[in-house]
């Protein structure tokens, strides 16, 4: 079971964003190597949440649907990628389940495996929002 924390939530954000421990750790790892790069990713994500992620979705746009309801959010300056899915049909809530550094422009088998893994978590609802008493 994956637990996710509220990251960007409230009236300021058209899309609420939640983040898993795994994605959070990957971002902190990125920040240890390159703080500015991590800042770029977080600033971009916060801005998208404010405007609503839906605006940025689509072919030739920063948020791309991969498959099985999994979306990839790109950061062009560092090839860092966030993977997640919408929590509800109205797309007002998004869960970031994984984050990683890509090593090339095209989708590698490792990238595909990560997307499949996130799709599995989504499909089987293997995640929960963290509440008091959660691990």
């Amino acid at each position, binding site marked *: 079971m994956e637990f996710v924390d509220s990251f960007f939530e409230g009236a300021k954000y058209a899309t609420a964003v939640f*983040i898993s421990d795994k994605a959070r750790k990957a971002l902190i790892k990125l920040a240890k190597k390159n703080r500015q790069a991590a800042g770029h990713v977080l*600033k971009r994500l916060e801005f998208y949440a404010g405007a609503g992620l839906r605006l940025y979705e689509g072919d030739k746009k920063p948020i791309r649907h991969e498959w099985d309801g999994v979306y990839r959010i790109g950061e062009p300056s560092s090839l860092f990628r966030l993977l997640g899915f919408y929590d509800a049909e109205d797309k007002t809530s998004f869960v970031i389940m994984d984050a990683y550094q890509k090593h090339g422009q095209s989708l590698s088998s490792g990238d595909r495996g990560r997307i499949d893994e996130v799709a599995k978590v989504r499909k089987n609802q293997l995640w929960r929002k963290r509440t008091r008493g959660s691990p």
Partner: protein
Amino acid sequence: MSVRELKDILSQFENTAESRGLELRLSLSEIVLRKLDELGWTQKRLADEAEMKESFISRVVHSNANWTADTAGKVLFALGLTARVQEHHPETPALRVVPGDVGRQVISYKREETNVKSTTTWYQEAASTPWKPQTGAA
């Protein structure tokens, strides 16, 4: 474990000049994407209208283009928009900022000498509408 560490990283980044540049790029991207949706245009159509390469429009959309004011002007003109940057203080808001509103707060910074937070807002309007400052709290 919490997300506080990530928020701290974000907060530190927001206190850099690089962050202000990124926010301007993100803001232009948002304005362009909203208008493209409204007009039902593709990025290719915008590129044609603005007489620019589609790859440049794609970089604008991805907030990756280090555009000049003149090139941003060409994109906005092709979309029939004007955009202005205005500094204002949150204590006396110049514009009510809500999702989907015509304007959006894009820059937030602290003035060290006065310890007063200031913000800069892009104004986005139809080109035919004369621009006038909006004052007063919403």
